[in-house]
């Protein structure tokens, strides 16, 4: 079946069964269900009424020629208007000219036209069209532009987003079944959601974040650019933002809070659970580009007298939240760092062996105020996945993993940071 385009249907005139004019088509209503939502109603203006709604069943034929009127089955006098159901939506009012997310190509598209097909006498929405071609058709310049393009030997590409992968951003569209509608978006990888979010404006981001579950929202924010992160958190309701910050790694949460205006950061810290807030506050005291500013406080440390079997049991019980368990540390009662051992060493060791016999006492560590560059050098020099961070008295305050540092070492981000620091 050939495609029909919404901008070519809109404003077409209607004639009834007796050939009398029956007004003009203003809009189409669809039931947004399934892969190809069916057109259920037409919104018509004139001839006597300003706006009335008719069921699609009254349509006899939609001629392919754009100039031909749409023919109805009955006489105007015999038509009775119906009302829209709350779960129906209007293509012209709610979809055309709006922004939608293409979840397949992970980008935001402005709808220039809507593509439909006819199947068994019923019109169905196939998808929406962005790009130059849809824009020209919307303006009724498509034919002209096609000829010009042909003369120049160019092709006018179409940019179609099929309904299957499309996610409207408009809050009103999703009011009915918000959870179900944002479902397509929520299934993407948080890094992809973050990319899409960066193309939206702050209030649109907030609308979407409010619907995602806390874990997905936290991961999405973590994956976004620092500037976007701050604006996302700022736009959210404080309670929701606090919940999401609690869900994040404390070092990520501290990074974001340090980019917020002071009053806002204070408000969020007050709203967060005291335990989580305290962890974040401790991290906030360190400079952004130092070991202290990058580290996480969620690490695994054991007393030296523990046996290997006890240590393994403790990991099972307690280390669920730890950022890494590939390295574990041994500390004395004053939390001073005594040694380190790896997960591999722990598992291969004799269960009755004490940790003080297993550990390496020469630990490579950095101080909280150590700069980013030196941290990176230490990590690469000793080929480590994580480094312990110690305070002035040699006490273990946190650990730094290689991915925390890698994020900042990437040259592009370096450049951006440099500009930021400069100002």
């Amino acid at each position, binding site marked *: 079946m050939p495609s029909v385009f919404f901008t070519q249907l809109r404003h077409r005139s209607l004639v009834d069964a007796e050939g009398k004019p029956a007004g003009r088509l203003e809009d189409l209503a669809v039931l947004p269900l399934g892969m190809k939502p069916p057109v259920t109603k037409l919104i018509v203006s004139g001839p006597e009424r300003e706006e009335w709604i008719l069921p699609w069943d009254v349509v006899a034929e939609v001629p392919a020629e754009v100039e031909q009127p749409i023919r109805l089955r009955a006489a105007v006098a015999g038509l009775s208007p119906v009302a829209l159901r709350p779960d129906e939506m209007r293509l012209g009012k709610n979809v055309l000219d709006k922004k939608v997310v293409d979840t397949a190509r992970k980008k935001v598209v*402005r709808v220039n036209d809507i593509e439909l097909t006819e199947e068994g006498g019923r019109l169905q929405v196939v998808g929406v069209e962005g790009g130059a071609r849809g824009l020209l058709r919307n303006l009724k310049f498509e034919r002209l532009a096609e000829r010009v393009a042909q003369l120049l030997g160019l092709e006018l590409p179409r940019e179609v987003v099929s309904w299957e992968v499309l996610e409207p951003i408009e809050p009103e569209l999703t009011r009915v079944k918000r959870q179900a509608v944002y479902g397509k978006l929520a299934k993407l990888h948080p890094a992809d959601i973050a990319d899409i979010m960066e193309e939206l*404006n*702050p*209030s649109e981001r907030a609308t979407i974040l409010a619907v995602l579950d806390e874990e997905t929202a936290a991961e999405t924010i973590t994956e976004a650019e620092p*500037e976007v992160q701050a604006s996302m958190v700022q736009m959210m309701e404080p309670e929701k933002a606090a919940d999401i910050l609690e869900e994040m790694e404390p070092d990520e949460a501290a990074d974001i809070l340090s980019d917020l205006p002071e009053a806002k950061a204070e408000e969020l810290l007050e709203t967060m659970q005291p335990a989580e807030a305290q962890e974040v506050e401790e991290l906030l005291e360190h400079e952004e580009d130092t070991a202290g500013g990058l580290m996480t406080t969620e690490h695994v440390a054991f007393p030296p007298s523990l046996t290997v079997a006890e240590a393994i049991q403790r990991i099972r019980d307690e280390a669920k939240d730890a950022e890494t368990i590939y390295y574990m540390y041994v500390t004395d009662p004053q939390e001073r760092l005594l040694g380190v051992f790896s997960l591999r060493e722990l598992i291969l060791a004799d269960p009755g062996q004490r940790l003080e016999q297993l550990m390496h006492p020469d630990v490579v560590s950095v101080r909280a105020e150590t700069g980013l560059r030196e941290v990176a050098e230490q990590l690469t020099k000793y080929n480590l996945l994580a480094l312990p961070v110690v305070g002035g008295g040699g006490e273990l305050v946190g650990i730094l993993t290689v991915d925390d540092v890698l994020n900042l070492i990437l040259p592009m981000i370096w450049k951006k940071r440099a500009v930021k620091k400069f*100002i």
Partner: protein
Amino acid sequence: MPRRWKRVRRRALLFLAVMGPGIITASVDQDAGGITTYSVAGAEYGYGLLWSLPLIVVALAVIQEMGTRMGVVTGRGLADMIRERFGLRLTLLCMAVLVLANIANTASEFAGVAASLEIFGVSRLWSVPLAAFLVFGLVVQGTYRAIERIFLVASAVYVVYAVSALLAQPSWPVILQQMLRPTLSLHGGYVTTLITIVGTTIAPWMQFYLQSSIVDKGVRLRDLRWARLDAYLGSFAAGLIAFFIIVACGATLHPHGVRIESAKDAALALQPFAGRHASALFAFGLLNASVFSAAILPLSTAYAVCEALGWQTGVDRRPHEAPGFFSIYTLMILVGAVPILLPRAPLVAIMFWSQTLNGLLLPFVLLVMLKLINDPEIMGRYVNSVAFNLVAWGTAAIMVALSVLLVLTSLV
């Protein structure tokens, strides 16, 4: 006492967090064209046009507040809203005129750069390309917040006009008397100057820029009152700057019957009356205003067009991520800067046409804004009050009348 202090501090912080868009927009408003207009008005009619400033400030404040409110309530830019409410055709028409008007405006900013630095003996062959390059780099390299901070600091430079005005030792009682009981005139030149003052102070691009900045900043509904304060303060500041420029020129040039045609003339003419420093300050103010506005105009235009067409926007992106945005931005800087380098560039004509296009576009933009802001489906309970509608409709009507008059007088 400490609790009260804490509350004051928190409020101050809240305002500081929201502050920016309104004040920056108002500052950009006092651009090369604005400074020229006020200087000419002061030299030609002394304090005779000062009475119009309070009225203009009220109109400006109402319109800026409308843009702010729409941005905060809907979370959308003006171009975005026009597209969603009025469809593609009207949007494209609107954008085409906006681009044209703003290219002309940008050109007049670069003309301002050329003129102000020529006072210090720098050739425009150096100053204009340098300024264009600077403006370009500022946006391609920086991040939005950083840029905003630079612009906010730049706004403070407008204090130089107050200093210039004070150095000119004006007679304050006469100023007060002229403001309260003005001597009106129906003389052709007087009316034309009045039209240009209104036209240059309330410009259409401001509405797009302001609303986008508000949206970008992510101001939430609960902070609306702070954003409003920002818009009002900005409008007041704009009026104050205009006041000081008119006073500076009115106190010095007018009594001696010095005729000027541009802001450069004004800066040079000030020297014998107000001293070398006043003249240099005036020129420096013009330079700052021109660079500042030359940076913002292409930016706001690129934003508006991309917003309307659904192209990637954002100064936070790399050029290849947002090709449309950066093409428009670059094109506007190039088309704005190159004509100024031509030896016999018709600078005055360029400024006049930019003013005319602004004048034609403004009533149209105001009508669209009024239609949008009074739609309860969009604005909910934040639709315009009767008083605001009266002022805005009044301004639109006066602007239509003035624009028609301006076009007619230019044709006759």
